[in-house]
């Protein structure tokens, strides 16, 4: 039985999908997208329709965090599909045929949805970027309230390590993401950076904090073996 997300992508009986993905793959293979005239326009319209459907579904799937519905969701879906189509056309020559054309193309609209949601995050009036919510550290890492006192020394060590051992940039990124729980894509939007750069900053901060806490005996010196999984959640 398909999941609710898959059913949404496939369309209900009343909104049946009108674009056959295999026709988009064929259109690419026969050079329609790089051609001219009516066949190209029809293929672009068909691809845009498919991108729009995926954007709507993806926004719906992720809207639990952001409570985006109705016209606002539809507007973000159109923006995502429009920008994805432009990006696809700009990078058409870079596609090397390692997957189906549609799989490659759909990736662009997925990334556009992430970018739009990152920007949308700042519409929340309560989000503060630079104020560290130190009191949230125990909750952030799963500690029950009655156990807080037993680990106050560890809490102090974490705070001290964040303040004294991280660079200003690492501290800014770590506090925003790990303490204040700002989504990475929202921080990318606010700082005018990119996902890879901020992830790398966060990666280095995590590694440094772990080393400091291990050196003081709060964590084991050896890292456990990383789990071997695909890393993709299955719904």
């Amino acid at each position, binding site marked *: 039985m398909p999941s609710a997300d898959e059913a949404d992508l496939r369309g209900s009986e009343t909104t049946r999908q009108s674009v056959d993905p295999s026709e988009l793959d064929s259109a690419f293979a026969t050079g329609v997208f790089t051609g001219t005239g009516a066949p190209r326009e029809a293929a672009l319209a068909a691809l845009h329709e498919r991108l729009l459907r995926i954007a709507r579904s993806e926004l719906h799937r992720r809207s639990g965090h952001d409570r985006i519905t109705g016209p606002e969701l539809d507007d973000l879906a159109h923006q995502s599909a429009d920008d994805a189509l432009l990006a696809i056309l700009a990078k058409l020559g870079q596609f090397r045929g390692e*997957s189906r054309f549609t799989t490659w193309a759909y990736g662009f609209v997925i990334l556009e949805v992430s970018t739009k949601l990152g920007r949308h995050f700042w519409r929340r009036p309560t989000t503060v970027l630079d104020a560290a919510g130190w009191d949230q550290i125990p909750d952030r890492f799963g500690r029950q309230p009655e156990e807080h006192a037993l680990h106050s020394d560890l809490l102090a060590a974490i705070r001290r390590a964040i303040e004294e051992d991280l660079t200003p940039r690492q501290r800014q990124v770590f506090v925003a993401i790990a303490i204040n729980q700002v989504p990475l894509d929202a921080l990318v939007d606010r700082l005018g950076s990119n996902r890879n750069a901020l992830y790398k900053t966060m990666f280095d901060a995590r590694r440094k904090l772990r080393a400091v806490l291990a050196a003081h005996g709060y964590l084991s010196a050896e890292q456990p073996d990383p789990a071997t999984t695909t*890393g993709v959640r299955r719904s």
Partner: protein
Amino acid sequence: MRGWAELERFLQTDPRDVGCEQALHVMHVYVELLLDDATGAEAIRRFPGVAAHLAACDPCAEDFEGLRLAVRADESAGT
């Protein structure tokens, strides 16, 4: 207990982690491998650094899952 298990997990880093840019560059290939092999063994074998990255980066894992759902919907619609 010497530390918080969740903190330990959060601060854990994998040297094989390729980062967001390289992971997203092969997202379409990785997702098709996942769809071809439900165990994910071939995806992990070919792209261990991507698997390591996705285990630590929620935004990228979310993107990969979104693409997997989109492609699987195509396949379901075609059957």
